[in-house]
């Protein structure tokens, strides 16, 4: 169970914090990320190949927004809790699900801002006993013109017992 009552978590549902600033989609980082996910395709590495494939610039892979986790893109006072007080025991927190909704691809040259909203909090009985607490954090990324580019839905789970999933 979190160190805070569920009601304290529920009271934060709907709150929004600025969590990403100056998230520049850099050519070298895109190439590095593409290689790290075993997808070093030409469209990620070469501007001419990207344009020939119909993109306006080198696109970033679908999960590239994860790199906004680097501390250099976090406003002061924002850490992995993204401005919320969930009271989760970090040693028991797993990344349960990740979903993205896109308006368009991210492109090299974009600079994005992210605002994170706690959209949902709930509890369930865990398979191995204990209570699992779920928190869904939606980060909306906008570009320099203020247009929405993508939404990132991150589901974190505080497990009741030993971790059986993906550490967050």
């Amino acid at each position: 169970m979190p160190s805070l009552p569920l009601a304290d978590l529920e009271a934060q549902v709907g709150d929004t914090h600025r969590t990403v600033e100056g998230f520049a989609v850099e050519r070298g980082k895109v190439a590095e990320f593409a290689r790290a996910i075993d997808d070093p395709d030409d469209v990620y590495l070469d501007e001419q190949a990207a344009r020939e494939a119909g993109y306006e610039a080198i696109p970033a892979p679908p999960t590239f927004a994860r790199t906004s986790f680097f501390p250099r893109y976090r406003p002061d006072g924002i850490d992995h809790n993204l401005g919320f007080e969930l009271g989760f025991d970090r040693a028991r927190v797993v990344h349960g699900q990740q979903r993205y909704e896109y308006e368009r691809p991210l492109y090299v040259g974009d600079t994005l801002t992210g605002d994170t909203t706690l959209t949902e909090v709930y509890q369930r009985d865990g398979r191995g006993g204990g209570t699992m607490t779920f928190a869904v954090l939606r980060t909306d990324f906008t570009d320099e013109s203020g247009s929405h580019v993508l939404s990132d839905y991150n589901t974190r789970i505080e497990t009741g017992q030993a971790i059986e999933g993906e550490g967050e």
Partner: protein
Amino acid sequence: MTDEFAVGDTFERVSEDVSREDFVRYAGASGDFNPIHYDEPHAQEAGYPSVFGQGMFTAGVASALVRETFGLAGLREYDTRFVAQVWPGDTLTTTLEVTAVEDVETGTRVEADLAVTTDGGERVVEGRAVAVV
């Protein structure tokens, strides 16, 4: 409407023999430095037989098939649930199966179920992708 995709079409891509080096490379590229993915003593103290891959590493590996199949320009949704760990030495097979094809104003909307399975037969990621092609 394009007839490029039909319900039941399946696509596959394999990443062979993922390693600790791959997890470290993903940590460096993504900024996810949870030591459970690269620090063997830390992982064993936490009760695991060894380090294991970031869920987002596998989600990234699986996204390669989504890009290959649908491209990125019309990608609308990409969803991954992390249901089991990926261990060093696993070979990962990603599959996409088209579940719906629908004519829409801007093209053809295609929905597909996604799964990533290890060579040991364990399903590690389940999800879906939606694209307008």
